[in-house]
């Protein structure tokens, strides 16, 4: 077995938490159940990984199998990576039958014709997700297995989720291979990024609980904001205001859990508006400013701002439009014309 493959397997196993190693090796299926029985999972990870490498040696593992183990690890720990969303466009309305073998062949063909040194691995999962792992090399160097790109493609949708490696120069090639393989004619990056792959899927597949504006909003559980068990000696003077906030919040965010995003970024290129007498800037130049909101769970924290009294309800549509517009990166420029208000560029 190649030394680099042995080292790669060893390092991959070391990444796995000790309690998960056995299950992951079983999912991998490369080592037989009998072989797994011989492993002592109660020793330190260094030793476990060495033993695993020895067993892989016996089975003559190559980089292809090692790459599958890596996909399995990244599928389970997908939230450690940052994912971007790409949308593909079809030229016509032809409903083509998706053939996975054809897809793989075309994808590999396209990549390999441009770059000889690549490792390409596929794994399909039950939710119609195709995971693709690509390790990139150069015409003169073997692929770097430690900085691969991962692509998740749901074949029934035009969306692709990419966690690129640091080498951004390979991205155009990757995108090209995707559209060729999936019979689309164009691909564009959406302004939507997060660590939570499932949340990104929720947003673009519209799987989160959206609220549809109704003209006769139903009272929520009898219109009570406070639970019935609250002390009756406490009188809430602003109950109607609290209920208004609660209702507005429900209209905007819906009742269910929000998709998990870690930040929203707004790039402002607007004119600084101030009292003309203050004259902060001599020239009328756009004021460049970047506003970034970060949170372990941005949308839930936005949802709790008004009820917590930290913001007025309703919240700015720039914040609340994030799931509907499927974006968390915005560019705000001056609107030129009669009404110089800022607008959000596409």
């Amino acid at each position, binding site marked *: 077995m190649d030394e680099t493959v042995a080292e790669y397997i060893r390092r991959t196993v070391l990444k796995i938490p000790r309690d998960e190693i056995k299950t992951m090796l079983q999912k991998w299926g490369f080592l037989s159940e009998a072989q797994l029985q011989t492993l002592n999972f109660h020793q330190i990870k260094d030793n476990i990984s060495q033993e695993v490498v020895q067993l892989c040696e016996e089975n003559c593992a190559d980089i292809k199998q090692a790459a599958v183990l890596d996909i399995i690890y990244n599928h389970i720990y997908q939230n450690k990576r940052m994912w971007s969303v790409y949308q593909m466009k079809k030229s016509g309305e032809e409903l083509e039958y998706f053939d996975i073998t054809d897809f793989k062949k075309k994808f590999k063909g396209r990549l390999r014709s441009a770059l000889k040194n690549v490792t390409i691995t596929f794994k399909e999962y039950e939710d119609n997700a195709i995971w693709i792992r690509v390790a990139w090399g150069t015409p003169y160097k073997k692929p770097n297995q430690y900085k691969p790109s991962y692509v998740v493609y749901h074949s029934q949708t035009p969306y692709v989720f990419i966690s690129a490696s640091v080498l951004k120069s390979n991205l155009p090639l990757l995108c090209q291979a995707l559209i060729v393989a999936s019979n689309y004619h164009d691909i564009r990056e959406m302004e939507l990024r997060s660590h939570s792959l499932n949340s990104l899927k929720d947003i673009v597949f519209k799987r989160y609980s959206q609220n549809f504006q109704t003209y006769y909003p139903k009272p929520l559980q009898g219109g009570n904001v406070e639970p019935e068990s609250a002390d009756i000696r*406490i009188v*809430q*003077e*602003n109950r*109607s*205001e609290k209920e208004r906030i609660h209702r507005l919040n429900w209209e905007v965010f819906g009742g269910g859990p929000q998709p998990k995003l870690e930040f929203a970024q707004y790039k402002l290129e607007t004119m600084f508006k101030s009292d003309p007498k203050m004259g902060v800037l001599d020239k009328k130049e756009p004021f460049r400013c970047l506003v970034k909101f970060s949170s372990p769970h941005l949308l839930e924290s936005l949802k709790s701002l008004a009820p917590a*009294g*930290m913001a007025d309800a309703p919240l700015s549509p720039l914040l609340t439009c994030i799931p509907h517009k499927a974006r968390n990166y915005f560019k705000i420029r001056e609107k030129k014309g009669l009404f110089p208000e800022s607008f959000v560029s596409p």
Partner: protein
Amino acid sequence: HLATSLPLPSERDHLRPRIDLIVFMIDIKSKYSLKNVEASLAHVDASFFLGKVCFLVTGVGRVNACSIETNAVCKLGEAYCSPVLFCELELEGIRVATAQRLLRMLQICAGHIRGVSALSFVSLMRNANDD
């Protein structure tokens, strides 16, 4: 009675008993809370400032998260001739002790303690702070 700001909604005027003590709660982590209190103070009748107003600063346990200077709050207390209490609501012991203090003040303000009026009590507190 809990309110988020003053003035109180007028539709509940007929349901409200006499107000004996107003405690303005300022979250030391929120500049907005101080602004809100300052804006609400304008709606308070002058007679309340004779011992029936108190400022309660919360969240003082989290030193790293302070957004307001204690100096600013103390100046506010001086300007309105009202005592300033500091507490940390997240610690049960301090929470209970603060509640007991407020309750004591309320008893005085409501006239339940013989021989001590709200005004005499607040000037007692002020003199103690000056030392």
